[in-house]
């Protein structure tokens, strides 16, 4: 035996490794989004691909040009995912130049200025959406009825010349109908997705299936969507019992961006709390805000603002829910 084999091996922590990399998680989430994208194409035609693709292009280019790591920073796939998620929150008839701008604003204002992936406080896709909503409130609330064109026809507004406005025919979303005209939509169309709305927020069944897949792959913290959905249902059941004019709880859960937001946006690991108790609180906070905004706010839909506000509260929630080291730290709040 040679003396070389007796050398002491010194290695540094960590000693356990998870095979899950950022890129792998992003791949899983993207895979779970494929059926959602497919449903969008089914209801709104090929324009869905164009909108999502353009938003993604804007996100990817911005990350590559402005991001600290340049083109190498794209490898983890997070910019692509941001773009796809942003695209799915947009109305089908949105002009493509706006979708591109949304991608640029989402990554630029939502990620790069904070220092890149992992440093951002807010979900970049929703920052892009919020920017577009604030900049172009009319276009972002102009909806196209599903199945109003053939698979390959485009709404007139899609190819609008950049900076110019093209009038579009508008259909009302289920939440808009409930808020402004007092008309309720049955659960059936909400489940299959045959209603007007953003590209990715139409079919509740497909969104839930995607959530189930991610749960099975352990690609996200299931507590967050569970907390959002449960709290929304309970609060709305109470609210609609007290004020009979309000929408019933099943409609609240299955309509608008609630499921898309709960499953794909609120679970963004960067901008949500990592402690289990924190995840429950985070979800409950989002649900409470959604119920408040939808029932009594000026807007028919409030998932985006609810998630962004709770994103800002995440660090506080995390501090308040840190596990105690046994026998050492005193119990304290914040």
């Amino acid at each position, binding site marked *: 035996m040679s003396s070389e084999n007796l050398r002491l091996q010194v290695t540094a922590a960590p000693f356990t490794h998870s095979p899950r990399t950022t890129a792998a998680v992003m791949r899983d989430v993207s895979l779970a989004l494929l059926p959602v994208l497919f449903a969008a194409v089914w209801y709104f035609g090929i324009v869905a691909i164009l909108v999502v693709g353009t938003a993604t292009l804007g996100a990817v280019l911005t990350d590559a040009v402005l991001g600290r790591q340049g083109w190498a920073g794209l490898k983890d796939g997070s910019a692509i995912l941001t773009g796809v998620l942003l695209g799915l929150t947009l109305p089908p008839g949105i002009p493509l130049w706006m979708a591109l701008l949304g991608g640029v604003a989402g990554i630029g204002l939502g990620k790069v200025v904070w220092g890149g992936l992992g440093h951002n406080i807010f979900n970049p896709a929703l920052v892009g959406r919020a920017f577009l909503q604030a900049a172009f*409130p*009319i276009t972002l609330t102009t909806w196209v009825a599903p199945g109003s064109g053939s698979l390959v026809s485009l709404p007139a507004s899609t190819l609008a010349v950049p900076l110019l406005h093209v009038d579009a025919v*508008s259909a009302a979303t289920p939440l808009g109908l409930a808020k402004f005209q007092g008309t309720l939509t049955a659960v059936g169309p909400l489940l299959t997705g045959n209603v007007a709305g953003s590209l990715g927020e139409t079919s509740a069944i497909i969104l839930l299936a995607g959530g189930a897949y991610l749960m099975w792959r352990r690609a996200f913290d299931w507590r967050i969507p569970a907390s959002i959905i449960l709290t929304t249902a309970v609060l709305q059941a109470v609210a609609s019992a007290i004020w009979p004019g309000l929408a019933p709880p099943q409609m609240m859960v299955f309509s608008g961006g609630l499921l898309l937001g709960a499953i794909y946006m609120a679970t963004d690991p960067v901008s949500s709390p990592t402690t289990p108790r924190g995840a429950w609180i985070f979800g409950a906070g989002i649900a409470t805000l959604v119920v408040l905004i939808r029932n009594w706010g000026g807007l028919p839909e409030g998932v985006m603002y609810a998630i962004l506000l709770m994103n800002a509260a995440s660090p506080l929630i995390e501090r308040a829910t840190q596990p105690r080291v046994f026998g050492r730290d005193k119990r304290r709040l914040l």
Partner: protein
Amino acid sequence: MSARQLDPGTTEPEAGPLKLVATLTIAGLLSGVAIVGAWQTTRPTILAYQAQVLKAAVFKVVPGAQGLQRLAWQGQTLAAEADPGGEGDDTPVVYGAYDASGALIGYAIPAEGAGFQDKIGLIYGYDPDASKIVGLRVLDSRETPGLGDKIIKDQEFVHGWDDLSTTPSIELVAHGKKAAPNQVEAISGATISSKAVMRIVSGSYADWAERLPKRADAPRQEITPAASPAKEVAP
């Protein structure tokens, strides 16, 4: 080392209290004189402009008006009231709109209330004999540009108030759904701001219009000015 001089300008480090008081008093006095001077110089121009804006608004909401006069309740009677001396005069007033002969043809009623963002201030014209609202203009608002500000820019909405029966009461209906003479169509996409305007007018109408006297019983215009066409002024 002597006391450090922070400020080379002040050579005496300790000024007596008398000097401090005197300095501030003199500064205050001079400041007062300067402000009063500026106020006196600019006052006529400012008042003339405000009167012009008001006149333009009244003449727009009461078609055919040639003159106007402030009216306020004095006890149980509506009587002419002098121009307000200064701001902060809270007496509720309406403006009587008169034709060339000095007979009342309608009232212009200012009203304000909460909009989607901040207060909306507006003025509407009322014809007491026909029980009709004959015009409406929003004067102040901070509604969302492109959406809520259609209450000013959307001509269809603005002219929806030009011939609006108030019996039994005014109502807001969805865009394209007007079926009766007492209905106004909301602006599609700006439902909240449309509702706010309707709420403000309804509230003010309940306060005012039902007890405003008919044309024949209204106070006449006291001073009949030379009928001059209203000059267009952007409000």
